[in-house]
């Protein structure tokens, strides 16, 4: 009798421990897995509405913080150049790129793109140094040596398989950005497209660092750069159209996309 009673007591004890453990683990696990789940289960409709209002308020604050306004004093001129670039793309660049793409197989075009990327190594290297990103400078150098030799002058990209050999790309505009220089104002460059005052200065800097710029006579250098652009365009036909197609005001859509894209590149 006594033993039996003790057994029951012990049994209960075990059950209690188990139950507590289940409860603790379930509670911790679930609250980790689904935040606020418990709060919302016990919520009345009114509290949920309040919670939503609070969330919206937070979102508005975040929105205000996240927006980097880049001034656009040249908007009217920019819009004219934007329209010209649009015309140039559809009437000239796209047909040429498409014709070129028609006679050149895609793998060849990808190799050409690899080659031009590889040869632009000095731009990335110098800017890594200017941004005190020595590790990246080293990675970039390894990549350049690897692709120039194993990848046969950079036409192939064996480095692609190794994530540590692919540091984010740096350019002079980004270097100026990390030095704390602001965008200035928005500029649409003829043919080259969206830019800002800072990035236009950066672009000039990149040209200095770009080996292709030093080819003599200058028209061969220009021809090489043009070819690079045509080759690149042939691999991305449809991207410009997609963004333009989805926008209500394409000018603003491209402006904002450019600013966001550069912001992220500078952060990296």
């Amino acid at each position, binding site marked *: 009798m006594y033993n039996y009673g003790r057994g029951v007591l012990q049994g209960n004890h075990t059950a209690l421990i188990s139950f507590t453990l289940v409860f603790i683990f379930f509670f911790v696990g679930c609250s980790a897995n689904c935040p606020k789940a418990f709060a919302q289960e016990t919520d009345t409709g009114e509290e949920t509405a309040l919670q939503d209002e609070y969330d919206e308020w937070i979102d508005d604050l975040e929105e205000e913080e996240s927006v980097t306004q880049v001034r656009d004093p040249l908007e009217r001129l920019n819009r004219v150049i934007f329209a010209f670039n649009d015309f140039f793309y559809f009437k000239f660049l796209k047909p040429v790129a498409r014709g070129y793409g028609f006679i050149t197989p895609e793998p060849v075009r990808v190799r050409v793109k690899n080659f031009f990327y590889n040869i632009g190594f000095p731009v990335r290297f110098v800017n890594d140094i200017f941004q005190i990103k020595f590790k990246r400078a080293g990675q970039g150098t390894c990549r350049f040596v690897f692709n120039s030799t194993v990848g046969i002058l950079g036409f192939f990209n064996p480095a692609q398989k190794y994530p540590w050999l692919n540091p984010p790309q740096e350019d002079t505009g980004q270097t100026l950005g990390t030095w704390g220089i602001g965008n200035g104002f928005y500029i649409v460059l003829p043919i080259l497209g969206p830019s800002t005052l800072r990035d236009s200065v950066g672009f000039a800097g990149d040209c200095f660092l770009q080996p292709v710029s030093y080819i003599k006579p200058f028209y061969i250098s220009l021809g090489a750069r043009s070819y690079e652009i045509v080759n690149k365009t042939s691999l991305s036909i449809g991207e410009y159209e997609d963004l333009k197609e989805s926008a*209500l005001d394409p000018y603003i859509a491209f402006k904002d996309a450019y600013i966001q894209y550069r912001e992220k590149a500078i952060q990296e």
Partner: protein
Amino acid sequence: MRQQLVIILLTLFFAIPVWASTPADGALDFVRTSVDKVLTILRDPACKEESTEEVQRQKLRTVVEVLFDYNEISRRVLGRQRKSFTPEQMDEFSDLFTRLLEKIYLNKIQKYSDEKVIYGKATMLSENKAEVETNVITASKQIPINYRVVYKHGEWRGYDVFIEGVSLVRNYRSQFNKILQKKSPEDLLQQLREKVNEEETPTKQAALSKGKCITTGGGSCRETTQL
């Protein structure tokens, strides 16, 4: 005593899997499930014929509606400007913007078939928001696409998508803000109505060229539809 031990161990055994998962994992699972469903539909050979294009679209729509919370996106995309909208205008805006997004997104993904999606890490941005990184790998490049999801009313839902670092919500917000600087909400709605109706046509053209391609027996189907 041994019995007790067994019970406790069993308890732990069942409890640990729940314990191991974190909120960020929940977000990753949610995005992975939805995107995998989209990929399955896109790769389903039965869906690739012209006659089933509309069926495929309908299937995709159902999955995408779970992935994205269109009401949340509509609200965010207007930001503070939504205060100048009447509730009726807000409803119409939400409806039109949903249709615009669906068209753009579905038109775009219906072209794809052989792309690979690699899932990256998920990071919590705040106590109920997370960002899930994915990479879409095509023949010539990698496109980073990150999904922002929020945990609300007991489930994860997408509220923004970042393509190569560009936020879709922020991009539309900058356009709407610009339009609303000079024009009324009604003008914006009118512009949206026109946009949504004009978007109808490319779909039909895509359907036509896809049909043409099949009759020529093309493995090059993708190229033709991309034109």
